Structures are given as structure tokens and as C-alpha cells.
């Protein structure tokens, strides 16, 4: 039996048949179980590993239908509309699925139903491990199941059971309004979805592929050099494909299929549309770090798919700001390499934002987004209201509290201590009063006015301090913070 540790102690998450027959149930505490039967064999549950395995299974199930969904923690849903006939009808599909899953060493409970909700419940709660329910029998098949078969949330399930509504039968044909009033809209929505009164569907597991090239190897390859050669071939093929379609890629994914059925996926995004094969090959090559450790018994096939494409018809003359746009076009390969190495969140450019609140006056956007030309000069003039040098060079992400000594309560400090270093203020300018954007702040958040001061200490270092809150407004005592450092 497997246990997980939570706030309320160790609880059983999974158990084998022998333990089930002894009367144990998932959710019991380990202490209770040990008290009943001291000779239990207990192991820690690997929830992340379970999830990885489930995703693997879901990916494998794509050979039956692209519309596949992993239902954490314990199931996979497939939308087999229009697919079943390929495998000898619904019964044939079920046979094949159960045989193949058996081959993996898995015991599966399978159900085919006209709605995804009904199939979810039937697979988990029906007595038979293999079931095909046609539309006319749907109601009668669902009726004897417990309400848990409706895929409800943790709150409404105990509420239903407490009132004696234990089976779906108890909910069918009941007046709807009182049920909604008491349990919220979820219960009836799930019921409608299961019965097919309401639409429920899901998209494909893998994003649709627009252009794809594959290559299969005569022998499984393991070494990095061999993989790089394969990437060179794939990118050249994809580039030729894109050239014909007059398109360039923004997102591609390389998949290396392992002999044992799993695959390694290397997604890649570029800052502008490209079909430059050497550039793509180089970017992908940089991602192959320690690929040999993950190769297992080798890769037997590889595919390169374009997930997002844009029209690209030769190089276009830029008509806009030449200094900015023209140069940007040429540094796209550099940006791609930086993003490839550091991640999209670590290669940013700044965009102005119309706000007087300092931390909101500028925002960082990824270089993968198209660059726009901004008039920073005007923006700075507006936020500083004409004063030169009224904004610091460095802004602390979170203002840090400082201890201050002020001559008069609502004047600038005469000395302050920041990070255990005392500074004597030689000159100060302010206050610059910045009121919070009350229309944006969430209810209950602090909405205190800040008075900003530019102060210079005796060594000539310039700091941006603010006092949060005002005196004699019935609020707490105002506190001082440092928000930035000037050049």
C-alpha cells in the first residue's frame, strides 16, 4: 500500500487487491490501518511519477484518437468520434485497448459511452471492467452509480451524501431549482453533461501540427553527433517545405522517439518568423545538453513539427523607424539564442505603461513579442511632471523599510538607516505625493498615499524614500521605505 504525507498525517492513497480484501480503503490514516493489521507493507507514493506515467499513457493513447485527455490522477479520456471504425468498431477498439494495456502490465477499467461525463463515471464506478453503453441505455446505466461518478468537487460530494442523495438515480427527475440553490450549479451541470443535455468536449492533446517532417533511422542512434546530423536533415527538409508555402516558423517542436515508446520533446520559440535551416539547427543543437543520458536504448525516429507559422515572403523592407526596426530584424538570431539559453522570461525589453505609480510605470515584456516603438522621453516627462532626475536608476522590486529620524513629523528625514548602514541626509527634495490607484487595488489591500522624497547623503549618494500614509488622518503611524537608488 502507498501513503502520502499531508497536514493531517499519513494517509493511504493506493493499495493492492490483497489490502482491499482486508477492508482497507484509500483515505484511511496509516495509524488506523496499522492498528488493524500491523504487518502492512507501506511505501511512499510518488505522485509526480504517477502523473508523468499518466501523461505517457495519454500520449500513447493518441494512436487511437488525437482528442485525448489525461484525467489526473487516474484516467485517460479519448474522444473516439469517427475513429472507432478504424479498429473494428467500438467493441473491437475496446478489445484492442484492453489487450495492449494488458501487455503493458496494466489492469484497466474501460467504458465507452455517448458522453465524456458518462464514460468517466462508468469507467470508475461501474461493476463491469469493460462496458459499451449505447445512447438509449445511458440513463439506465448511470442511474445505479454513486453520485461520485459525476466528477464532482470535494465540497458538493459530502453535502449530497449527507442528505441521502447517494446514487445518481436520486438526482434524476428531481426539481432543479432547489438542487441548484442548495448545492450550486456544478452538480446539475455535471449531470447534464453526463446525460448529453449539455455539450462537453476537449481539444487534442498535442497542438495541431502545420508542417512536419520526420526521419526514421535504420539503427537506433544514441550519440549527440548522430542526433545533430539528424537535426540538420530535418531542419533542411522543414525549411524547404516552408519555402514552398512562403511561411516561416515561430514555434517548432523536435521529438526524438525512443525505442521503448517514450519520446523526448524539445520545444523552441523564435523571436521572428524564420525558415533559416542552419539557425534552427543551431538553436536545437544547443538544447541537446545531456541528451545522451536520456537516450535509453537509443532513438529510432525523429520528427520536427512547426506549431506556429507566419507568412514570410522574402525579406521585407521596413518602412518604420529604421534605427529600431531595421536593426531588430538583424538581431533576431541573437535574441533567439539568448532566449534558447536563458528562457523567455529572462530576456526582456521594457514597455512604458501609463501610470503614476512607480512600479507600474514600466513593464517588462518578452522579446518574443513584437517590438513597438515608444516615446519614452514623453513618458518620462509625464511621470516626472517636468522635473529632471525625479526617477531613480534602480527600483527595488519590493520597497524596503528604513528607520528614520525626521526633524518635523511630516518633513523629510534627517538621517536614515538602510541595510544596517546609517546615512545622514545632506539635502532632500519633496514631497512628491503619489496616491494609489484605488480603482485597481483589490478590496482590502492597502491604499495609502505615498510621499516621495529624493534625498542625498553626505557622501553624495542619492536615494528615493517614501513615507507611506499621512499624519493625522486616523491611520496607523506612517512608515518610511526606500524604493530606489539614483545614479
Amino acid at each position, binding site marked *: 500500500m502507498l501513503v502520502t504525507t499531508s497536514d493531517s498525517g499519513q494517509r493511504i492513497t493506493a493499495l493492492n487487491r490483497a489490502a482491499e480484501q482486508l477492508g482497507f480503503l484509500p483515505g484511511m490514516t496509516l495509524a488506523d490501518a496499522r492498528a488493524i493489521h500491523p504487518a502492512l507493507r507501506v511505501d511512499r507514493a510518488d505522485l509526480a511519477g504517477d502523473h508523468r506515467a499518466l501523461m505517457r499513457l495519454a500520449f500513447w493513447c493518441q494512436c487511437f484518437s488525437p482528442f485525448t485527455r489525461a484525467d489526473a490522477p487516474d484516467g485517460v479520456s479519448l474522444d473516439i468520434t469517427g475513429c472507432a471504425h478504424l479498429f473494428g468498431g467500438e467493441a473491437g477498439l475496446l478489445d484492442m485497448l484492453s489487450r495492449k494495456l494488458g501487455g503493458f502490465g496494466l489492469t484497466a477499467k474501460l467504458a465507452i459511452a455517448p458522453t465524456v461525463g458518462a464514460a468517466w463515471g462508468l469507467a470508475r464506478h461501474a461493476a463491469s471492467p469493460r462496458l459499451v453503453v449505447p445512447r438509449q441505455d445511458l440513463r439506465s446505466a448511470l442511474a445505479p452509480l454513486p453520485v461520485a461518478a459525476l466528477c464532482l468537487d470535494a465540497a458538493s460530494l459530502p453535502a449530497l451524501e449527507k442528505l441521502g442523495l447517494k446514487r445518481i438515480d436520486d438526482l434524476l427527475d428531481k426539481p432543479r431549482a432547489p438542487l441548484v440553490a442548495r448545492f450550486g450549479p456544478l452538480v446539475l451541470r455535471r449531470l447534464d453533461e453526463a446525460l448529453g443535455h449539455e455539450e462537453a468536449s476537449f481539444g487534442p492533446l498535442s497542438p495541431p501540427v502545420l508542417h512536419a517532417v520526420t526521419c526514421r533511422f535504420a539503427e537506433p542512434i544514441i550519440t549527440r553527433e548522430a542526433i545533430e546530423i539528424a537535426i540538420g536533415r530535418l531542419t533542411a527538409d522543414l525549411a524547404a517545405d516552408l519555402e514552398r508555402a512562403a511561411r516561416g516558423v515561430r514555434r517548432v517542436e523536435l521529438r526524438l522517439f525512443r525505442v521503448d515508446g517514450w519520446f523526448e520533446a524539445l520545444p523552441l520559440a523564435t523571436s521572428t518568423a524564420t525558415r533559416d535551416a542552419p539557425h534552427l539547427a543551431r538553436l536545437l543543437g544547443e538544447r541537446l545538453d545531456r541528451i545522451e543520458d536520456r537516450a535509453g536504448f537509443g532513438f529510432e525516429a525523429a520528427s520536427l513539427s512547426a506549431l506556429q507559422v507566419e507568412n514570410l515572403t522574402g525579406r521585407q523592407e521596413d518602412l518604420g523607424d529604421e534605427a*529600431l526596426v531595421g536593426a531588430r530584424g538583424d538581431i533576431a538570431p541573437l535574441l533567439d539564442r539568448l532566449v534558447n539559453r536563458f528562457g523567455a522570461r529572462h530576456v526582456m525589453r*521594457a514597455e512604458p505603461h501609463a501610470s503614476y505609480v512607480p512600479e507600474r510605470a*514600466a513593464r517588462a515584456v518578452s522579446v518574443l513579442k513584437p517590438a513597438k516603438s515608444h516615446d519614452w522621453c514623453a513618458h518620462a516627462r509625464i511621470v516626472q*511632471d517636468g522635473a529632471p532626475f525625479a526617477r531613480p536608476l534602480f527600483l527595488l522590486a519590493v520597497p524596503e523599510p528604513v528607520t528614520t529620524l525626521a526633524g518635523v513629523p511630516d518633513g523629510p528625514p534627517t538621517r536614515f538607516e538602510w541595510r544596517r548602514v546609517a546615512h545622514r541626509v545632506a*539635502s532632500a527634495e519633496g514631497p512628491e505625493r503619489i496616491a494609489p490607484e484605488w480603482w485597481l487595488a483589490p478590496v482590502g489591500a492597502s491604499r495609502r498615499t505615498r510621499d516621495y*522624497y529624493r534625498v542625498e547623503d553626505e557622501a553624495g*549618494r542619492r536615494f528615493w524614500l517614501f513615507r507611506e500614509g499621512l499624519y493625522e488622518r486616523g491611520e496607523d503611524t506612517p512608515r518610511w521605505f526606500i524604493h530606489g537608488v539614483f545614479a
Partner: protein
Amino acid sequence: MKHAFDIEALRRRIATQERLTPVRRPAVPLGPAALDAALPAHGLATGALHELVPAAHGDFAAGIGFGFCLLARIARSRAGQVLWAVPAHLEHREGGLYPPGLAALGFDPGRLIQVTARKPIDILWALEEALGHAPLAAVVGVLPEKARDYDFPASRRLALRAAAQGVTALILREREVPGMSTAAETRWSIASLPSRLEGMTSRAGAGFGPGAPRWQIKLTKCRKGTSGGRSDGWSAGWHGGRPDNWDVEWDHETLSFRLPPPLADRAPAWASGIDSSWAEAS
């Protein structure tokens, strides 16, 4: 005179052997004539590596500020973006670059690409990659104090790449490393100075407050130059007739440095030209 000619010939011979400057790049004058005269190219050489070192622990922002003022001047004469690479932990400690503050100094934040990396070696990788791209105007890297990866070969690689493409590289060391030898063209030490009080009437309040940023900059290293090289303080403030440190003030409107009027108790006026005998002797 024959003696002087020989030295010129020798310099040319060394320059061809060094292969560091295959193309003569224009220099960006800093503004004040006295400052430019101290630099062999009569300005900050572009397509070269320059190092900035804060004079004290609290002068980090001053060093970066001075760097961005240099960049504002470089960016005016060369189109393209500027790459800024900084270790993530330093950004947490010192705060992030604040674009409106850059705009206030006269540098267009729209031309900045910001990269945060975890390790100094990644910073150096990003700088080296970027220096190979001619469309950039400049690259700036911030290196923490304990960046062992930045040694002479690493700096030499950066300098060669910078020279090949004409992209200027600035490196800000968190602190001066004693006995450090790098291939940088110049090294500057920057300290904050009290600014001139200025009368203000704006939304930012009325009264006298800190004015334009002012720093004391010291040229501690200058290749092919005739001054600097000392790190034993600046007691005299001048060096064989030529100073190696200046009090400068940044003018955000003309994008130039200016030397504010000297104060009464400072060393005598030094703008008396070049002491040629000293220059030859070096």
C-alpha cells in the same frame, strides 16, 4: 625629434603585431576637452572593452549611472540596440533597472534588451554572443565580485570580438580586484559626489534639492594612454601635470558631461596643456 619619431614607429609596429584594432573606429568624445585629452583616441574608443568599477560598495548605482551616460553618448552616434546582462542575484539586491530613470538620464529604454542569468559565465557567454552581432550599439555586463571566469583570456576574447564588429563593450565589476590584469582599453573608478543644490518648482516639490548627478571619475587604466595606471589614491589630484581624475556632472539635455566650476579649496587649475616631456618619458 628623431627620438620621438622612433617611438611613433615602434608604436605602429606594436599595433600591427597586436592585431587588436584592424579597423580604426571612431571615438565618442565625452564632452569636456580636458577629459578627452587624457584619452589616446580623444574620446571613448568604440569597438573596445571598457571597465567600470565603483570606488566603494555604495557607489554601484553611480557606476551604472556613469555607464549609461557613456551609452547615451555612444547610442547617439551608432544605431542599434544595447544589451544589458546582469546576474539575477545582483538584480534582487540592487533592484531592477528602472526605465523611466534611464529615460531621465537621456538613454532611450526602448533600445535596451535586458538579460538576467544565474552565473557570471552565462553573462560572459551572452556578452560574447552579442558582440558578434554588428547591429548592436553596445553591450553591458555586470559581474559580481567573485567572478573568477572573468580573467585575462576572457577579457581578451571580448576585446577582440568588440574590435571585429565595432560594438562597444562595458563591464561593470562590483568591486576592484587588486592586481587584476585584463585586456580592457580603459578602466574607470566612479564615486558619488554631492550634487549642486538646485531650486525646483514642480510637482516633485518646491525648494532646494539634489541636482544633476555628479561623480568623481578616475581613469585607473588606459591602454596606449599617457595617464593613469595608479591605484594608490589621488592625493595630489594630478600626475606629472596631467590629472587622472575629474569631477563631472551629467547634462541630460545635451547628453554630455561637463566639468563643474572647481571649488576654491581644490588643487590648482590643471588645464594647462600636456606636459610633453612627461608624455615622452612614459
